[in-house]
């Protein structure tokens, strides 16, 4: 009973819900009772540990395995690793700027089974038992062996590594890796500080910076700090810091185990640029640019694009149910009604206008995508969201979404991407599960939307959605964070329909639907390809 009361006060204290009266009683108790104080101190210590080194929401099987093996030792190493890295970052920042950079370090991903994503892959030859890796593919703990080409791996903690030429890299956790041999350039922007790259010679702790590492076949390590600072850890190297513009060679077998060498490394962007990254429209599976003359068409007349099994149509009676027919049956094509600030070919030609009211258009896909099988799909589309005030009670709900449905079970599983009436990005499923972002976008602008759907037969699906406001630069590679990600989903439907929905008192413009296997197959990139991130 005593502990339950303390638990209540402590939780209320930390969550800022404690009342004045509770506070008074709690304090009196602490004054009088040494046992209560000890409990209080242990509780606060526990919170401090959880706050600074939060546990990952690991895959169930992995947790069970770790527990069976006698405790999740991997967590412990990782936690203290983050702690040390964060501390170094703190110290340096205080020293260099007299200001603080958050000590969150590399965040721990929620599905520890996966630790990163292959976000870019150009001319890559992978020397791995499983064969080629696909751009966009999620990466588990384990070894990557690149034979040739250029690849960018983004760890879930935020650090990005560009690998060039023959390179072997172990992915250990969302915030750490091990370079066995080869060359990488590491970039850890704000929020990803604390990334640890181990080499045969040392552990390198990124302090929110950019650095190149080369490991030769004997394990000797060269570190070239391009920006910021890197801390060396390991035997006799505790806390040693290498600053921007400096390069060192670490080799235990040499007469001098650490010596300065001349800087000789390219920046992250330059390395990627050398690979001549380009948009990959050629990989796109499905495209609809509504490239028709402006006019009102009959249902069944709009059959352009590629990757479709038939023209746009209205919903059938079975699909909309009694009394829920469309407000308008027009298939209206208009021109130049989007403000396209991205390099979207065809973005100013034809586009579909949805009139006021509730309007829905359906189109069958030539190849369904089966959520019961392993697959990675990206899609994008553009919408002109009309100028309307943000929702207040009593207003008509304005909204637009793109939904994947199955013709075999139209009202069964579904995946829907759009936004709430407050313009918060949202993912919804057929069984009513909703995942909303706290990000809000303004109405009265053209929005570019990108989504990613990873299906797995025996594990959780990963569904992500990101919106770009007018004028916002599109990411060159898949971004570190999405506006909203759906968790805990395991779908099995085979989606073969795309449904566009527009609801509210205002007309809306829709254009440029793309579906493909990678970010670059659905997101336009400037020809120069100079923007990474």
């Amino acid at each position: 009973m005593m502990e339950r009361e303390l638990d209540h006060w402590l939780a209320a204290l930390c969550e800022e819900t404690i009342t004045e009266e509770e506070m008074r009683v709690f304090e009196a108790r602490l004054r009088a009772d040494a046992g209560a104080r000890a409990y209080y101190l242990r509780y606060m210590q526990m919170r401090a540990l959880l706050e600074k080194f939060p546990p990952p929401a690991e895959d169930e099987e992995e947790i069970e395995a770790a527990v069976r093996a006698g405790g999740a030792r991997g967590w412990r190493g990782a936690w203290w690793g983050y702690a040390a890295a964060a501390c170094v970052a703190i110290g340096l920042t205080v020293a260099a700027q007299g200001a603080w950079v958050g000590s969150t370090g590399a965040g721990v991903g929620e599905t520890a089974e996966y630790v990163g994503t292959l976000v870019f892959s150009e001319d890559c030859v992978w020397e791995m038992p499983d064969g080629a890796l696909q751009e966009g593919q999620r990466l588990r703990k384990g070894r990557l062996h690149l034979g040739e080409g250029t690849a960018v791996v983004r760890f879930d903690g935020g650090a990005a590594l560009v690998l060039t030429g023959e390179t072997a890299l172990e992915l250990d956790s969302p915030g750490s890796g091990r370079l066995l041999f080869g060359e990488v350039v590491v970039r850890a922007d704000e929020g990803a500080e604390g990334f640890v790259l181990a080499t045969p010679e040392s552990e390198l702790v990124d302090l929110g910076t950019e650095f190149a590492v080369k490991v030769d076949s004997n394990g000797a390590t060269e570190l070239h700090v391009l920006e910021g600072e890197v801390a060396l850890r390991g035997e006799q190297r505790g806390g040693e810091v290498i600053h921007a513009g400096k390069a060192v060679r670490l080799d235990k077998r040499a007469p001098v185990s650490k010596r300065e060498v001349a800087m000789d490394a390219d920046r992250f962007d330059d390395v990627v640029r050398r690979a001549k990254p380009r948009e990959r429209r050629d990989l796109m599976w499905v495209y609809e640019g509504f490239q028709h003359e402006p006019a009102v068409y009959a249902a069944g007349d709009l059959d352009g694009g590629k990757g479709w099994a038939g023209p746009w149509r209205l919903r059938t009676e079975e699909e909309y149910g009694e009394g829920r027919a469309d407000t308008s049956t027009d298939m209206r094509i208009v021109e130049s009604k989007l403000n396209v600030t991205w390099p979207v070919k065809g973005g100013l030609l034809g586009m579909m206008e949805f009139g006021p009211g509730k309007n829905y258009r359906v189109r069958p896909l030539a190849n369904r995508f089966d959520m019961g099988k392993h697959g990675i799909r990206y899609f994008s589309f553009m919408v002109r969201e009309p100028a309307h005030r943000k929702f207040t009670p009593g207003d008509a709900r304005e909204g637009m979404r793109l939904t994947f449905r199955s013709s075999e079970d139209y009202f069964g599983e579904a995946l829907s991407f759009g936004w709430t009436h407050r313009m918060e990005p949202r993912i919804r499923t057929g069984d009513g599960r909703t995942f909303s972002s706290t990000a809000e976008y303004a109405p009265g602008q053209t929005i570019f939307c990108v989504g990613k759907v990873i299906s797995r037969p025996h594990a959780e699906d990963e569904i992500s959605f990101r919106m770009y406001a007018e004028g916002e630069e599109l990411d060159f590679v898949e971004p570190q964070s999405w506006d909203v990600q759906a968790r805990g989903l395991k779908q099995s439907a085979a989606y073969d329909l795309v449904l566009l929905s527009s609801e509210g008192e205002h007309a809306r413009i829709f254009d440029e639907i793309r579906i493909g296997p990678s970010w670059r197959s659905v997101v336009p990139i400037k020809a120069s390809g100079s923007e990474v991130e």
Partner: protein
Amino acid sequence: MTDQDRHDEFMGLFIDHQPRIYAYIRSLIPHKADADDVLQETAAVLWRKFDQFEKGTHFDRWAFRTAFHQVRYFRQKKARERLQFGDEILDVLAQEAEEHTEGLEDTQAALERCLGKLASEDRKFVAWRFAPGGTNRGIAKRIGKSESVVSRSMSRIYGSLMKCISLQLKFEGGAG
């Protein structure tokens, strides 16, 4: 000693002691964001006054003293915004917290084991709650329950963890 050497020496010490310094501050400041601010200020003051630190003496005690001043200063600034304990109990807690943090590593090891023993649903809640930006409200939204339901669950989970940690430390004979 060059500035760089001093700086590196400071960092080495700070790295070693930061978890204990944070745990100490957190024991005196009930809100995480406030504790982060105080830790930031403490780090800045420690660095500014590093000349006054006598090599070979206890960095942790010096850091705790500095942190305590920062805690008091912070409390004065926030006196009107926050419900807070009185100065008398704060002094007592500060004194005891200093000793208590000596067992931090043992507590962390125990916490890890105890997290492994939680039911998977509870473990998930803890991970969500302490992920960057995690709140009870966020969890409630995520699972479609009310915030008070989540608060009660979290309170129960913390209680289980506390019980488990105590048992673990007792069993191991660890400090804490």
